[in-house]
């Protein structure tokens, strides 16, 4: 029997299953609302998922290493909001969007260092450490950076927020694909290369697989952990900046609270919460599936109040499938030698 092609189609992290789910869901929505087919849906999907995609890349690194992070949204909004406030107050970096993004990444790096100290230095369990830093970062932003919504943008960022790669007109409505999809895609590719082809990337998998084994194999566990949380901070800073740029209103109360959508996407994408497995492809598909479901509920005539429920249900189905298949796999090899003997 040739079972290999099926396994390859399914993918190492169930990427195939995700692709199938996305196709099946699209067909179901397409049948009930034919207007689903068309460029607007695709462009909306791109624009709506690009920010969570960048956040998800950071969360992927953390989950692959066996941790969990709930502070990335706080880092994101802190960085984005601070960059908008800074030029308004000082006139610094007003004209170039690149300067804004670099500053946001730098702020994210600093805040990520906070996580690195708590997790790699003080060895606090990751969920508890990031819950703590989430409170500190968000509180510090609202207390010392600002708590008002800011509508005035420096010229460079204002322009970038209204730059579109593609615009499709259908009747009076126009659907656009934000140009920010390009940096988002570049980041995904870079994280993919990092995870697959560099020592650091392989070390992250090794730590997630078994930290003690990784240490005995000579991997600098503490150093790698510092890298992970600092890098995740940088990614979160950039993603927060993208969010602020795209929305066109810097609102410090946004983003925090949306962590679960991103974590759900990464877990759906096949990353194991125990660490050691997960892929960029799977994560991208997970983000796409969640965004698609959220977008399409309205098309299907389901009130938007059901969005949260739908994402939760999706997450539940995903983790149940993972748990069951893990149990089957554990049973499989244990029986095989006995049968052979």
């Amino acid at each position: 029997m040739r079972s290999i092609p099926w396994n390859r189609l399914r993918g190492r992290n169930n990427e195939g299953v995700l692709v199938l789910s996305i196709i099946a869901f699209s067909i179901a929505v397409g049948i009930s609302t034919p207007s689903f087919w068309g460029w607007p849906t695709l462009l909306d999907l791109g624009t709506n998922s690009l920010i969570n995609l960048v956040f998800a890349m950071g969360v992927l690194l953390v989950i692959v290493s066996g941790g969990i992070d709930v502070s990335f949204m706080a880092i994101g909004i802190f960085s984005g909001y601070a960059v908008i406030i800074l030029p308004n107050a000082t006139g610094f970096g007003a004209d170039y969007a690149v300067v804004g993004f670099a500053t946001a990444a730098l702020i994210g790096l600093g805040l990520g260092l906070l996580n690195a100290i708590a997790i790699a230095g003080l060895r606090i369990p990751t969920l508890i450490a990031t819950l703590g830093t989430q409170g500190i970062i968000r509180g510090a932003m609202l207390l010392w950076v600002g708590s008002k919504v800011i509508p005035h943008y420096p010229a460079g960022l204002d322009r970038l927020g209204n730059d579109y790669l593609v615009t499709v007109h259908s009747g009076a409505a126009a659907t656009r694909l934000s140009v920010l999809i390009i940096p988002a895609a570049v980041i995904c590719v870079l994280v993919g290369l990092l995870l697959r082809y560099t020592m650091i990337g392989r070390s992250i998998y090794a730590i997630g697989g078994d930290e003690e084994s990784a240490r005995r194999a000579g991997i600098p566990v503490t150093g790698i952990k510092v890298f992970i949380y600092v890098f995740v901070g940088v990614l979160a800073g950039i993603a927060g900046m993208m969010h602020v740029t795209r929305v066109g209103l810097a609102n410090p109360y946004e983003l925090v609270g949306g962590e679960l959508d991103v974590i759900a996407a990464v877990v759906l994408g096949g990353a194991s919460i125990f660490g050691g497995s997960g892929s960029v492809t799977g994560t991208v598909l997970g983000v796409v599936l969640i965004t698609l479901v959220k977008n399409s509920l309205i098309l299907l005539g389901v009130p938007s109040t059901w969005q949260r429920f739908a994402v939760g249900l999706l997450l539940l189905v995903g983790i149940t499938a993972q748990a069951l298949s893990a149990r089957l796999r554990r049973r499989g090899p244990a029986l095989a030698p006995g049968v052979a003997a």
Partner: protein
Amino acid sequence: MSDLTERAVQRLLSERDLVALVAMGLVVLAVFSLVTDTFLTVISFQVMGFQVAEVALLSLAVMLSMLTGGIDLSIVSVASIAALVVAKGFAATNAATAGSGRALWLTVAFIALGLLAGVACGLVNGFLIAKLRITPILATLATLQILNGIGIAWTGGVTVYGMPNQFLNVGGGYVYHVPIPVLILLGAAFLTGVFVNRTGIGLRVRLVGANPTAARYSGLNPTRVLYATYVASALLASIAGVIIASRAASASADYGASYLLLAIVIVVLGGVSPLGGYGTVTGVVLSAFVLQMVSTGFNMVEFSAFAYQIAQGVILIAVIGLNTLTQRYGGAWRSRLLRSRRRAAATGDPSTARTQ
């Protein structure tokens, strides 16, 4: 050193967490009593009592799951589901305008129904964790999302009003100047203590958390233990939900969302190990009161709510960080102490040797 004082010192050392908490509470009390002249009054303590009960109940719920080495993130959603069941029940029966006899009857019935709904949520968590063997973090993350989603969809995101006075008394009344929520909290804490310390299943809860492998090899079936843990946790959460609804005179899917971080801070500050196995009800209740004093004190000196949020995060990281550091570097010190004692025992010096 006489034997008696040594035993007292030993006792204090073994209850180090509790002693540290009481000391911290006294410092907080002293600071705010000095800084403000309204802090050390009966009224301010009554206000604190009304506020502390719901979050202390949620903390007890988190403690139970942490004892087994897991965590229950869904408590906040469970609380709001219980509150919504009660509120929707009142709205459907027009209880706010009912006669006092009928209103009382409805109050009892819908509180029971709300708690029952909470227990049902706990059963779902138990099924996912004990039967399907999903990691507690993920399982409760999903139910947190789903239950919150059900709440939002059920209410359409709107706050539900209309509650009879009999129900409002639960969260706002006094018995001999003591707020009723505090009495509910103390009752629930006592029962939780009995459950954890005096019942067989409670002992198993701690065993599963302290060493799951050893528990399994001792023939302990974790399924029932995990079911009991998550049902009890959900029950405590739904009691908190009922109090929240009664105090707010309304219910909404979003109430109490900020309590999750606070509950975990309280539990950890109360000396519960996030890795499972260790923790006391007294510690958790004490730490809830200490943090409530910090919150009320911050309010009185007009610090913003965001400053309290920062304080929560700093306390959480400082407490756990200190714990892991003392474990790492304190181990060597402790083993040296033990060795010197053993040497003393071997040479027959009765003043430093301790019989087991």
